[in-house]
Protein backbone atom coordinates (compact mmCIF):
# COMPACT_ATOMS: atom_id res chain seq x y z
CA UNK A 1 0.00 0.00 0.00
CA UNK A 2 2.84 2.38 0.90
CA UNK A 3 4.49 1.58 -2.38
CA UNK A 4 1.25 2.33 -4.17
CA UNK A 5 0.98 5.74 -2.51
CA UNK A 6 4.65 6.42 -3.24
CA UNK A 7 4.03 5.48 -6.87
CA UNK A 8 1.12 7.90 -7.05
CA UNK A 9 3.12 10.76 -5.51
CA UNK A 10 5.91 10.18 -8.01
CA UNK A 11 3.84 9.49 -11.12
CA UNK A 12 0.54 11.03 -10.02
CA UNK A 13 0.28 13.17 -13.16
CA UNK A 14 0.70 10.21 -15.49
CA UNK A 15 -1.74 8.04 -13.52
CA UNK A 16 -4.37 10.79 -13.49
CA UNK A 17 -3.71 11.47 -17.16
CA UNK A 18 -4.29 7.84 -18.16
CA UNK A 19 -7.42 7.55 -15.98
CA UNK A 20 -8.88 10.81 -17.29
CA UNK A 21 -8.11 9.95 -20.92
CA UNK A 22 -9.82 6.58 -20.49
CA UNK A 23 -12.84 8.33 -19.02
CA UNK A 24 -12.83 10.81 -21.93
CA UNK A 25 -12.49 8.02 -24.46
CA UNK A 26 -15.45 6.28 -22.86
CA UNK A 27 -17.49 9.50 -23.02
CA UNK A 28 -16.49 10.19 -26.63
CA UNK A 29 -17.45 6.73 -27.79
CA UNK A 30 -20.63 6.52 -25.74
CA UNK A 31 -22.14 9.94 -26.42
CA UNK A 32 -20.94 10.93 -29.92
CA UNK A 33 -22.57 9.01 -32.77
CA UNK A 34 -19.81 9.57 -35.33
CA UNK A 35 -16.86 8.64 -33.14
CA UNK A 36 -18.86 5.79 -31.63
CA UNK A 37 -19.45 4.32 -35.08
CA UNK A 38 -15.76 4.57 -35.97
CA UNK A 39 -14.86 2.92 -32.67
CA UNK A 40 -17.29 0.03 -33.14
CA UNK A 41 -16.13 -0.48 -36.71
CA UNK A 42 -12.39 -0.41 -35.85
CA UNK A 43 -13.00 -2.70 -32.92
CA UNK A 44 -14.65 -5.32 -35.10
CA UNK A 45 -11.84 -4.97 -37.67
CA UNK A 46 -9.24 -5.56 -34.98
CA UNK A 47 -11.10 -8.44 -33.36
CA UNK A 48 -11.62 -10.19 -36.68
CA UNK A 49 -7.92 -9.71 -37.50
CA UNK A 50 -7.03 -11.35 -34.19
CA UNK A 51 -9.45 -14.20 -34.86
CA UNK A 52 -7.87 -14.66 -38.27
CA UNK A 53 -4.40 -14.93 -36.76
CA UNK A 54 -5.60 -17.44 -34.19
CA UNK A 55 -7.17 -19.63 -36.86
CA UNK A 56 -3.98 -19.53 -38.91
CA UNK A 57 -1.92 -20.54 -35.87
CA UNK A 58 -4.28 -23.45 -35.20
CA UNK A 59 -4.06 -24.52 -38.85
CA UNK A 60 -0.30 -24.64 -38.50
CA UNK A 61 -0.62 -27.28 -35.79
CA UNK A 62 -2.85 -29.45 -37.97
CA UNK A 63 -0.47 -29.04 -40.90
CA UNK A 64 1.64 -32.15 -40.23
CA UNK A 65 -1.50 -34.28 -40.03
CA UNK A 66 -2.67 -32.89 -43.35
CA UNK A 67 0.74 -33.49 -44.92
CA UNK A 68 0.72 -37.10 -43.72
CA UNK A 69 -2.68 -37.79 -45.21
CA UNK A 70 -1.69 -36.08 -48.48
CA UNK A 71 1.45 -38.21 -48.69
CA UNK A 72 -0.64 -41.37 -48.24
CA UNK A 73 -3.05 -40.24 -50.92
CA UNK A 74 -0.21 -39.46 -53.33
CA UNK A 75 1.33 -42.87 -52.79
CA UNK A 76 -2.00 -44.45 -53.70
CA UNK A 77 -2.22 -42.31 -56.85
CA UNK A 78 1.35 -43.18 -57.91
CA UNK A 79 0.48 -46.86 -57.76
CA UNK A 80 -2.31 -46.33 -60.25
CA UNK A 81 0.01 -44.95 -62.91
CA UNK A 82 0.93 -47.02 -65.92
CA UNK A 83 4.61 -47.39 -65.13
CA UNK A 84 3.70 -49.07 -61.85
CA UNK A 85 1.66 -51.80 -63.54
CA UNK A 86 2.70 -55.18 -64.87
CA UNK A 87 1.12 -55.71 -68.26
CA UNK A 88 -0.48 -59.13 -68.24
CA UNK A 89 -1.66 -59.04 -71.81
CA UNK A 90 0.43 -61.21 -74.05
CA UNK A 91 0.61 -59.66 -77.47
CA UNK A 92 -0.32 -62.54 -79.69
CA UNK A 93 -2.59 -60.98 -82.18
CA UNK A 94 -3.54 -57.52 -83.26
CA UNK A 95 -6.44 -57.18 -80.88
CA UNK A 96 -5.10 -55.21 -77.96
CA UNK A 97 -6.88 -55.33 -74.66
CA UNK A 98 -4.51 -54.27 -71.94
CA UNK A 99 -4.74 -56.36 -68.83
CA UNK A 100 -2.60 -55.07 -66.00
CA UNK A 101 -1.81 -55.99 -62.44
CA UNK A 102 0.01 -54.12 -59.75
CA UNK A 103 3.79 -54.23 -60.23
CA UNK A 104 5.03 -51.39 -58.07
CA UNK A 105 3.58 -50.14 -54.80
CA UNK A 106 4.43 -46.86 -53.11
CA UNK A 107 4.62 -46.40 -49.35
CA UNK A 108 4.78 -42.91 -47.89
CA UNK A 109 7.53 -42.27 -45.35
CA UNK A 110 8.99 -39.33 -43.50
CA UNK A 111 12.69 -38.49 -43.39
CA UNK A 112 13.90 -38.47 -39.79
CA UNK A 113 17.59 -37.78 -40.39
CA UNK A 114 19.55 -36.63 -43.40
CA UNK A 115 22.94 -35.30 -44.51
CA UNK A 116 24.23 -33.79 -47.74
CA UNK A 117 27.55 -32.25 -46.74
CA UNK A 118 29.67 -35.40 -46.42
CA UNK A 119 31.35 -37.50 -49.09
CA UNK A 120 29.24 -40.48 -48.07
CA UNK A 121 25.87 -39.15 -47.01
CA UNK A 122 23.06 -41.04 -45.35
CA UNK A 123 19.37 -40.72 -44.69
CA UNK A 124 16.92 -42.43 -42.35
CA UNK A 125 13.16 -42.81 -42.82
CA UNK A 126 10.48 -43.79 -40.32
CA UNK A 127 9.37 -47.02 -41.99
CA UNK A 128 10.98 -50.46 -41.46
CA UNK A 129 10.35 -54.19 -41.69
CA UNK A 130 7.12 -53.77 -39.70
CA UNK A 131 5.77 -51.79 -42.66
CA UNK A 132 7.01 -54.21 -45.28
CA UNK A 133 10.22 -52.39 -46.17
CA UNK A 134 13.27 -54.46 -47.10
CA UNK A 135 16.74 -53.58 -48.40
CA UNK A 136 17.20 -52.61 -52.07
CA UNK A 137 13.82 -50.93 -52.48
CA UNK A 138 13.82 -47.58 -54.27
CA UNK A 139 13.24 -44.21 -52.64
CA UNK A 140 11.44 -41.46 -54.56
CA UNK A 141 11.08 -37.89 -53.36
CA UNK A 142 7.51 -36.81 -52.59
CA UNK A 143 7.49 -33.25 -53.85
CA UNK A 144 9.22 -33.58 -57.21
CA UNK A 145 8.64 -37.31 -57.76
CA UNK A 146 12.32 -37.93 -58.52
CA UNK A 147 14.98 -40.42 -57.49
CA UNK A 148 16.47 -40.10 -53.99
CA UNK A 149 18.22 -43.40 -53.26
CA UNK A 150 17.93 -47.04 -52.33
CA UNK A 151 17.12 -48.74 -49.02
CA UNK A 152 20.31 -50.15 -47.53
CA UNK A 153 19.26 -51.72 -44.23
CA UNK A 154 16.13 -51.90 -42.11
CA UNK A 155 15.22 -52.14 -38.45
CA UNK A 156 11.67 -52.77 -37.26
CA UNK A 157 10.53 -49.19 -37.64
CA UNK A 158 13.32 -47.38 -39.46
CA UNK A 159 15.33 -47.81 -42.63
CA UNK A 160 18.75 -46.51 -43.63
CA UNK A 161 18.91 -45.12 -47.14
CA UNK A 162 21.87 -45.09 -49.48
CA UNK A 163 21.12 -41.77 -51.18
CA UNK A 164 22.44 -40.87 -54.63
CA UNK A 165 24.82 -38.56 -52.76
CA UNK A 166 27.02 -41.49 -51.71
CA UNK A 167 30.21 -42.71 -53.35
CA UNK A 168 28.90 -46.29 -53.56
CA UNK A 169 25.51 -45.44 -55.00
CA UNK A 170 24.99 -46.42 -58.61
CA UNK A 171 21.59 -46.22 -60.25
CA UNK A 172 20.68 -47.24 -63.74
CA UNK A 173 19.47 -44.16 -65.63
CA UNK A 174 18.72 -43.39 -69.26
CA UNK A 175 18.25 -40.38 -71.51
CA UNK A 176 14.56 -39.95 -72.08
CA UNK A 177 14.84 -38.67 -75.66
CA UNK A 178 16.88 -41.53 -77.17
CA UNK A 179 16.99 -44.27 -74.54
CA UNK A 180 20.78 -44.61 -74.09
CA UNK A 181 21.45 -45.73 -70.55
CA UNK A 182 24.29 -45.63 -68.08
CA UNK A 183 25.09 -45.53 -64.41
CA UNK A 184 24.41 -42.54 -62.21
CA UNK A 185 27.18 -41.96 -59.69
CA UNK A 186 28.20 -39.15 -57.40
CA UNK A 187 31.78 -37.92 -57.11
CA UNK A 188 31.26 -35.84 -53.96
CA UNK A 189 31.07 -32.11 -53.50
CA UNK A 190 28.01 -30.31 -54.85
CA UNK A 191 24.83 -32.06 -53.62
CA UNK A 192 22.79 -30.71 -56.53
CA UNK A 193 24.69 -32.50 -59.32
CA UNK A 194 25.61 -36.13 -60.08
CA UNK A 195 27.41 -37.80 -63.00
CA UNK A 196 26.00 -40.20 -65.54
CA UNK A 197 28.73 -42.43 -66.98
CA UNK A 198 29.00 -45.07 -69.68
CA UNK A 199 26.88 -43.32 -72.31
CA UNK A 200 28.26 -44.49 -75.69
CA UNK A 201 30.06 -41.87 -77.75
CA UNK A 202 27.72 -42.12 -80.72
CA UNK A 203 24.72 -41.01 -78.66
CA UNK A 204 23.41 -37.62 -79.65
CA UNK A 205 23.27 -35.45 -76.52
CA UNK A 206 21.65 -32.08 -76.02
CA UNK A 207 22.09 -29.91 -72.95
CA UNK A 208 18.78 -29.83 -71.12
CA UNK A 209 17.78 -33.40 -72.00
CA UNK A 210 15.85 -35.24 -69.28
CA UNK A 211 17.55 -38.11 -67.46
CA UNK A 212 15.17 -40.68 -66.02
CA UNK A 213 15.33 -44.13 -64.48
CA UNK A 214 15.85 -46.83 -67.08
CA UNK A 215 13.59 -49.48 -65.60
CA UNK A 216 16.39 -52.07 -66.10
CA UNK A 217 16.31 -53.12 -62.46
CA UNK A 218 13.86 -54.25 -59.85
CA UNK A 219 14.33 -51.03 -57.93
CA UNK A 220 12.63 -48.21 -59.82
CA UNK A 221 9.85 -48.21 -62.36
CA UNK A 222 10.79 -46.73 -65.70
CA UNK A 223 10.49 -42.96 -66.17
CA UNK A 224 11.10 -41.63 -62.69
CA UNK A 225 12.86 -38.32 -63.22
CA UNK A 226 16.50 -37.97 -62.15
CA UNK A 227 17.52 -34.60 -63.53
CA UNK A 228 18.61 -32.77 -66.67
CA UNK A 229 21.90 -32.65 -68.61
CA UNK A 230 24.08 -29.75 -67.50
CA UNK A 231 27.31 -30.45 -69.45
CA UNK A 232 28.97 -33.52 -71.00
CA UNK A 233 32.43 -34.55 -72.15
CA UNK A 234 34.35 -37.67 -73.27
CA UNK A 235 36.52 -39.43 -70.79
CA UNK A 236 40.04 -39.42 -72.28
CA UNK A 237 40.95 -42.83 -73.71
CA UNK A 238 37.43 -44.22 -73.63
CA UNK A 239 34.52 -44.33 -76.00
CA UNK A 240 32.03 -43.08 -73.46
CA UNK A 241 30.56 -39.77 -72.48
CA UNK A 242 30.40 -38.55 -68.94
CA UNK A 243 27.40 -36.30 -68.27
CA UNK A 244 27.00 -33.82 -65.46
CA UNK A 245 23.37 -34.09 -64.33
CA UNK A 246 21.46 -31.36 -62.48
CA UNK A 247 19.53 -33.38 -59.94
CA UNK A 248 15.81 -32.80 -59.76
CA UNK A 249 15.35 -33.63 -56.10
CA UNK A 250 16.87 -31.23 -53.62
CA UNK A 251 18.10 -33.64 -50.98
CA UNK A 252 19.03 -30.74 -48.73
CA UNK A 253 15.41 -30.05 -47.81
CA UNK A 254 13.64 -33.35 -48.38
CA UNK A 255 10.84 -34.16 -45.90
CA UNK A 256 8.62 -36.86 -47.35
CA UNK A 257 9.60 -39.77 -49.58
CA UNK A 258 7.94 -42.83 -51.09
CA UNK A 259 9.38 -46.30 -50.79
CA UNK A 260 8.94 -48.11 -54.11
CA UNK A 261 8.42 -51.87 -53.97
CA UNK A 262 8.57 -54.18 -56.97
CA UNK A 263 6.09 -56.97 -56.22
CA UNK A 264 7.85 -59.37 -58.59
CA UNK A 265 11.38 -58.75 -57.36
CA UNK A 266 11.92 -62.29 -56.05
CA UNK A 267 10.95 -63.88 -59.31
CA UNK A 268 13.28 -61.58 -61.27
CA UNK A 269 16.13 -62.01 -58.83
CA UNK A 270 15.87 -65.80 -58.87
CA UNK A 271 15.92 -65.81 -62.64
CA UNK A 272 18.96 -63.55 -62.83
CA UNK A 273 20.78 -65.64 -60.24
CA UNK A 274 20.12 -68.72 -62.33
CA UNK A 275 21.63 -67.05 -65.40
CA UNK A 276 24.75 -65.96 -63.59
CA UNK A 277 25.22 -69.44 -62.06
CA UNK A 278 25.41 -71.09 -65.44
Amino acid at each position, binding site marked *: MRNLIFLFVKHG*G*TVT*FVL*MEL*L*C*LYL*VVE*TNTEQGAIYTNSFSVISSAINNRATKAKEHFYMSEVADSLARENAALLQERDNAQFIKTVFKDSLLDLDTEQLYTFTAAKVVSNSVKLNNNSMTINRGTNHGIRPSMGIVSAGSNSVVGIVKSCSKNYSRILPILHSQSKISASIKRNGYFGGLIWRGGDPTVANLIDIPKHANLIIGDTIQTSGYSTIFPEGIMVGIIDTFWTQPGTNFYEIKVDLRSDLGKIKYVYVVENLKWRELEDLEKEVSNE
Partner: protein
Amino acid sequence: MSNIVATNGLRFIIFVLIQVLVLKGIDIGGANFNYISIIIYPLFIILLPLRTPHSILVLLGFLLGMCIDIFYDSYGIHASASVFSGYIRPYVLRLFAPKGGYNLNYSPVANRYGFNWFIAYAATMLFLHLFFYFSVDAFTFYYISDIALRTISTFIISLLIIIVYQVIFNPKE
Protein backbone atom coordinates in the same frame (compact mmCIF):
# COMPACT_ATOMS: atom_id res chain seq x y z
CA MET B 1 -2.69 32.37 -2.06
CA SER B 2 -6.43 32.89 -2.06
CA ASN B 3 -5.75 35.70 -4.50
CA ILE B 4 -4.25 33.26 -7.03
CA VAL B 5 -7.13 30.82 -6.62
CA ALA B 6 -9.64 33.64 -7.10
CA THR B 7 -7.82 34.96 -10.19
CA ASN B 8 -7.67 31.55 -11.81
CA GLY B 9 -11.23 30.71 -10.87
CA LEU B 10 -12.43 33.94 -12.42
CA ARG B 11 -10.30 33.29 -15.50
CA PHE B 12 -11.82 29.80 -15.78
CA ILE B 13 -15.35 31.20 -15.82
CA ILE B 14 -14.53 34.06 -18.20
CA PHE B 15 -12.67 31.87 -20.71
CA VAL B 16 -15.44 29.26 -20.73
CA LEU B 17 -18.09 31.95 -21.21
CA ILE B 18 -16.16 33.73 -23.99
CA GLN B 19 -15.50 30.43 -25.71
CA VAL B 20 -19.05 29.06 -25.64
CA LEU B 21 -21.04 32.31 -25.90
CA VAL B 22 -18.93 34.34 -28.33
CA LEU B 23 -16.30 32.32 -30.16
CA LYS B 24 -18.46 29.24 -30.72
CA GLY B 25 -20.88 31.34 -32.77
CA ILE B 26 -18.25 32.93 -35.03
CA ASP B 27 -18.26 31.25 -38.41
CA ILE B 28 -15.27 32.39 -40.46
CA GLY B 29 -14.97 30.03 -43.42
CA GLY B 30 -18.70 29.70 -44.03
CA ALA B 31 -20.31 26.48 -45.13
CA ASN B 32 -17.76 25.86 -47.89
CA PHE B 33 -14.65 26.09 -45.75
CA ASN B 34 -15.53 25.07 -42.23
CA TYR B 35 -11.93 24.44 -41.24
CA ILE B 36 -11.50 27.50 -39.04
CA SER B 37 -12.73 27.76 -35.48
CA ILE B 38 -11.39 29.94 -32.68
CA ILE B 39 -10.28 28.13 -29.55
CA ILE B 40 -8.71 30.13 -26.73
CA TYR B 41 -9.84 28.29 -23.58
CA PRO B 42 -6.49 26.35 -23.30
CA LEU B 43 -5.12 29.71 -22.15
CA PHE B 44 -6.51 28.83 -18.72
CA ILE B 45 -4.21 25.80 -18.49
CA ILE B 46 -1.33 27.78 -20.00
CA LEU B 47 -1.62 30.47 -17.31
CA LEU B 48 -2.05 28.20 -14.25
CA PRO B 49 0.58 28.86 -11.50
CA LEU B 50 3.91 27.05 -11.89
CA ARG B 51 3.57 25.21 -8.59
CA THR B 52 0.28 23.54 -9.56
CA PRO B 53 0.77 19.76 -8.99
CA HIS B 54 0.84 17.62 -12.12
CA SER B 55 -2.27 15.61 -11.28
CA ILE B 56 -4.21 18.80 -10.41
CA LEU B 57 -3.27 20.19 -13.86
CA VAL B 58 -4.76 17.09 -15.45
CA LEU B 59 -7.91 17.21 -13.33
CA LEU B 60 -8.45 20.93 -13.98
CA GLY B 61 -7.96 20.19 -17.67
CA PHE B 62 -10.70 17.61 -17.48
CA LEU B 63 -13.03 20.01 -15.64
CA LEU B 64 -12.38 22.81 -18.17
CA GLY B 65 -12.84 20.50 -21.15
CA MET B 66 -16.08 19.07 -19.80
CA CYS B 67 -17.51 22.59 -19.27
CA ILE B 68 -16.73 23.40 -22.92
CA ASP B 69 -18.08 20.03 -24.03
CA ILE B 70 -21.43 20.62 -22.34
CA PHE B 71 -22.02 23.62 -24.61
CA TYR B 72 -20.44 22.09 -27.71
CA ASP B 73 -22.50 18.92 -27.12
CA SER B 74 -19.44 16.75 -27.69
CA TYR B 75 -18.82 15.03 -24.35
CA GLY B 76 -15.21 13.90 -23.96
CA ILE B 77 -13.65 15.47 -27.06
CA HIS B 78 -12.60 18.86 -25.67
CA ALA B 79 -12.07 17.18 -22.29
CA SER B 80 -9.56 14.68 -23.64
CA ALA B 81 -7.64 17.45 -25.41
CA SER B 82 -7.56 19.58 -22.24
CA VAL B 83 -6.47 16.61 -20.14
CA PHE B 84 -3.67 16.11 -22.64
CA SER B 85 -2.69 19.78 -22.45
CA GLY B 86 -2.61 19.61 -18.65
CA TYR B 87 -0.46 16.53 -18.80
CA ILE B 88 2.13 17.91 -21.24
CA ARG B 89 2.40 21.38 -19.68
CA PRO B 90 5.36 20.54 -17.35
CA TYR B 91 7.26 19.00 -20.30
CA VAL B 92 6.63 22.01 -22.55
CA LEU B 93 7.71 24.32 -19.71
CA ARG B 94 10.92 22.33 -19.30
CA LEU B 95 11.51 22.82 -23.03
CA PHE B 96 11.38 26.62 -22.63
CA ALA B 97 13.08 26.80 -19.22
CA PRO B 98 15.04 30.07 -18.79
CA LYS B 99 18.70 30.00 -17.70
CA GLY B 100 18.10 30.40 -13.98
CA GLY B 101 15.11 28.03 -13.94
CA TYR B 102 11.59 28.98 -12.93
CA ASN B 103 10.54 30.76 -9.75
CA LEU B 104 7.78 28.44 -8.58
CA ASN B 105 5.92 31.25 -6.82
CA TYR B 106 4.86 32.84 -10.09
CA SER B 107 2.65 31.95 -13.00
CA PRO B 108 4.18 31.47 -16.47
CA VAL B 109 3.32 34.95 -17.74
CA ALA B 110 4.97 37.41 -20.15
CA ASN B 111 5.30 39.88 -17.29
CA ARG B 112 7.93 37.61 -15.66
CA TYR B 113 9.69 35.84 -18.51
CA GLY B 114 9.25 38.13 -21.49
CA PHE B 115 6.80 38.51 -24.35
CA ASN B 116 8.68 36.31 -26.83
CA TRP B 117 9.09 33.55 -24.30
CA PHE B 118 5.38 33.59 -23.51
CA ILE B 119 4.31 33.51 -27.15
CA ALA B 120 6.62 30.57 -27.92
CA TYR B 121 5.37 28.66 -24.88
CA ALA B 122 1.69 29.47 -25.47
CA ALA B 123 1.97 28.66 -29.20
CA THR B 124 3.48 25.23 -28.50
CA MET B 125 0.81 24.42 -25.94
CA LEU B 126 -1.98 25.66 -28.19
CA PHE B 127 -0.72 23.77 -31.22
CA LEU B 128 -0.44 20.46 -29.35
CA HIS B 129 -3.86 21.01 -27.81
CA LEU B 130 -5.46 21.72 -31.21
CA PHE B 131 -3.79 18.79 -32.93
CA PHE B 132 -4.95 16.44 -30.20
CA TYR B 133 -8.43 17.94 -30.25
CA PHE B 134 -8.89 17.59 -34.02
CA SER B 135 -7.43 14.08 -33.94
CA VAL B 136 -9.96 12.98 -31.32
CA ASP B 137 -12.67 14.83 -33.22
CA ALA B 138 -11.91 12.91 -36.43
CA PHE B 139 -11.22 9.80 -34.32
CA THR B 140 -9.06 8.30 -37.06
CA PHE B 141 -5.78 9.27 -38.71
CA TYR B 142 -7.26 8.36 -42.06
CA TYR B 143 -8.01 12.06 -42.64
CA ILE B 144 -4.61 13.24 -41.42
CA SER B 145 -4.36 16.02 -44.03
CA ASP B 146 -7.80 17.23 -42.97
CA ILE B 147 -6.71 17.21 -39.33
CA ALA B 148 -3.53 19.11 -40.20
CA LEU B 149 -5.45 21.75 -42.18
CA ARG B 150 -7.94 22.31 -39.37
CA THR B 151 -5.16 22.43 -36.77
CA ILE B 152 -3.05 24.96 -38.67
CA SER B 153 -5.86 27.32 -39.70
CA THR B 154 -7.40 27.28 -36.22
CA PHE B 155 -3.97 27.64 -34.64
CA ILE B 156 -3.11 30.81 -36.58
CA ILE B 157 -6.31 32.70 -35.79
CA SER B 158 -6.47 31.50 -32.16
CA LEU B 159 -2.85 32.50 -31.56
CA LEU B 160 -3.67 35.99 -32.88
CA ILE B 161 -6.48 36.29 -30.35
CA ILE B 162 -4.16 35.11 -27.58
CA ILE B 163 -1.54 37.70 -28.57
CA VAL B 164 -4.23 40.38 -28.52
CA TYR B 165 -5.33 39.21 -25.08
CA GLN B 166 -1.72 39.30 -23.88
CA VAL B 167 -1.16 42.79 -25.24
CA ILE B 168 -4.40 44.19 -23.78
CA PHE B 169 -4.51 42.53 -20.36
CA ASN B 170 -0.88 41.48 -19.77
CA PRO B 171 -1.77 39.13 -16.83
CA LYS B 172 0.46 39.47 -13.75
CA GLU B 173 -0.50 36.20 -12.11
